[in-house]
């Protein structure tokens, strides 16, 4: 139910009305509204109840285990929130001069250094406001690099078919042609196909490592060699950085540019489209092209570099220095962990995934890559259940909601039929992991004995199966008065 549907004409709430209105004298008459705006007319209590009820319908990381593969839904420590919301940070105006923002800029400078260190890159820009913008910045720098060398023949970006769907979209946005590289049966990039695809037209490759198939790329050194020998650059999609955080550095693997999803790996609240932060790190040869602003320390003072002092920059990504509040949370998270803590993130993220993978296999589930070790996530395929019992991955996902678990990612990656991509993250207790495994085993038993029960799920949620075809074809997000 919408709040507008609780509205009753002329119901007002004196306590919430403005005490005084400012002078409208300086607003041109044609910009002044002549009719009252159409707002819901509800009491304060109705409003509180309405939104509290809505919030209670949420499945969230604060209420449920959320093993949504590829999304890294880890716990967001409350301490990060508390510190990022200190008045000095929250009330800092984004146009304040640098000499009045020294505290904030010191944090951002430190964050740049931490991200440089953990990724092994030469320099970092915090400017991109989300993962997709980080990707765009990364590939725009690859283009700027080739352009600056007058190398206009490089028109193609290679993207393995196991990549995130955003990768080909990014390359296209930067006016490159996308060439897909196949994956072999064990989930690695097909090296022979890669060798056949590279040439003087290769601008670079966009690689997700570990890949979306839930496996580590084993031939990464070979891939880096093949691309660099052909004059191309290597782009690292940092979506799965959680699996290697503090253990292995993309810079050491030979990558030239990386974007990081701080809202995932560095534990800031996300979901529902934002807010995000997608800093980029680069090797020495891409440093001149980094997006601005950049924070530097000079003469004991923190300063902000803009296009004026960075003539080769690809430009700013937004009006200000990234998503300040999210960057602050990520910075505090990194400082709370420290160097050792950061290693434990990768260790426990991969340990938890491998534990669940082995337990689910023992419970009778088929793995997409049974010969491979899990990364921070892994893939179960329900192909057999779909074929023999007519119970598919979506049915399992919906039934999991009844058992109190957010469903894993379904039907992604596209290469694996009837798949569940499961990512527990490092922040869950073993009891929670065991609870999920037990629920999966019970649903499997239900599918074998009473398939309709699973196919009719969920039963305990505010809504049953949604008509996703109708939602996609007749998207209607606006309310209008009858």
């Amino acid at each position, binding site marked *: 139910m919408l709040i507008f549907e609780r509205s009753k004409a002329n119901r007002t709430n004196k306590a919430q009305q403005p005490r005084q209105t400012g002078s409208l004298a300086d607003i041109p008459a044609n910009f002044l509204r002549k009719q009252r705006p159409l707002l819901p007319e509800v009491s304060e209590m109705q409003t509180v109840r309405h939104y509290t009820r809505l919030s209670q319908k949420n499945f969230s990381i604060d209420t449920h285990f959320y093993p949504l593969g590829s999304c890294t839904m880890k716990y967001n420590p409350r301490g990060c929130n508390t510190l990022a919301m200190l008045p000095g940070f929250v009330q800092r105006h984004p146009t304040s001069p640098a000499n009045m923002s020294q505290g904030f800029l010191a944090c951002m400078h430190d964050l740049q250094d931490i991200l440089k260190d953990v990724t092994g890159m030469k320099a970092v820009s915090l400017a991109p406001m989300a993962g997709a913008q980080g990707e765009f910045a990364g590939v725009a720098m690859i283009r700027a690099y080739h352009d600056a060398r007058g190398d206009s023949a490089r028109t193609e970006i290679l993207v393995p078919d196991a990549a995130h769907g955003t990768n080909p979209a990014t390359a296209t946005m930067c006016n490159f042609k996308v060439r897909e590289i196949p994956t072999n049966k064990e989930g690695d990039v097909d090296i022979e196909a890669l060798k056949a695809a590279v040439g003087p037209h290769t601008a670079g490759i966009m690689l997700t490592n570990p890949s979306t198939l839930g496996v580590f790329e084993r031939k990464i050194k070979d891939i880096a060699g093949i691309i660099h020998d052909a004059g191309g650059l290597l782009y690292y999609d940092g979506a799965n950085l959680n699996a290697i955080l503090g253990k292995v550095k993309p810079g050491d693997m030979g990558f030239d540019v990386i974007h990081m999803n701080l809202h995932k790996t560095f534990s800031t609240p996300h979901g529902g489209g934002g807010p995000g932060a997608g800093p980029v790190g680069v090797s020495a040869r891409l440093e001149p092209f980094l997006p601005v602003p950049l924070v530097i320390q000079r003469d004991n003072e923190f300063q902000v570099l803009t296009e004026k002092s960075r003539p080769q920059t690809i430009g700013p990504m937004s009006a200000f220095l990234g998503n300040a509040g999210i960057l602050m949370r990520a910075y505090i998270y990194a400082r709370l962990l420290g160097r050792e803590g950061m290693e434990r993130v990768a260790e426990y993220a991969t340990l938890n995934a491998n534990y669940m993978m082995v337990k689910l296999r023992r419970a009778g589930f088929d793995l997409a890559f049974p010969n491979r070790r899990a990364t921070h996530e892994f893939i179960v395929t329900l192909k057999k259940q779909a074929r023999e019992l007519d119970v598919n991955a979506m049915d399992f996902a919906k039934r999991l909601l009844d058992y109190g678990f957010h469903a894993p990612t*379904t*039907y992604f990656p596209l290469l694996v039929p009837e798949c569940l991509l499961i990512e527990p993250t490092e922040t869950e207790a073993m009891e929670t992991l065991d609870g999920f495994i037990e629920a999966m085993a019970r649903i499997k038993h239900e599918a074998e004995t009473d398939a309709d029960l699973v196919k009719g799920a969920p039963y305990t949620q505010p809504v049953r199966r949604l008509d996703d*075809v109708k939602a*996609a*074809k007749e998207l209607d997000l606006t309310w209008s008065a009858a």
Partner: protein
Amino acid sequence: MSNVPSELRYTKSHEWVARNEDGSFTVGITDHAQHLLGDLVFVEVPDVGTDFSAGDDCAVVESVKAASDVYCPLDGEVTEANETLADTPEIINNDAFGDGWIFKLQAKDAGAFDDLMDADTYAEMIAED
């Protein structure tokens, strides 16, 4: 299991091709492909008059699960596109090999049709899927 009409030819990427009496070819996606994709919600057909090489992405089919490119099976020029798919993409779910055709093309080399997979080979390939 999905049906695989014997008079058609097929590609690895799940397009079917029919040879028409007037020498043109009709292209669509197979019943197996529509089954994997699930309910379709959007189809982008190619512009009439466009030249494609075999292997070029020339159309898009999008379902509630995934968006997927359709690849041109032969070198040639698009002569007709199934515009009814814009409003009713579900035709492909209901009749992939009939009313759910996507476009027609005039092939540069009609002989290349015979090099495409026959029904038995395609049926064997999808049985392994």
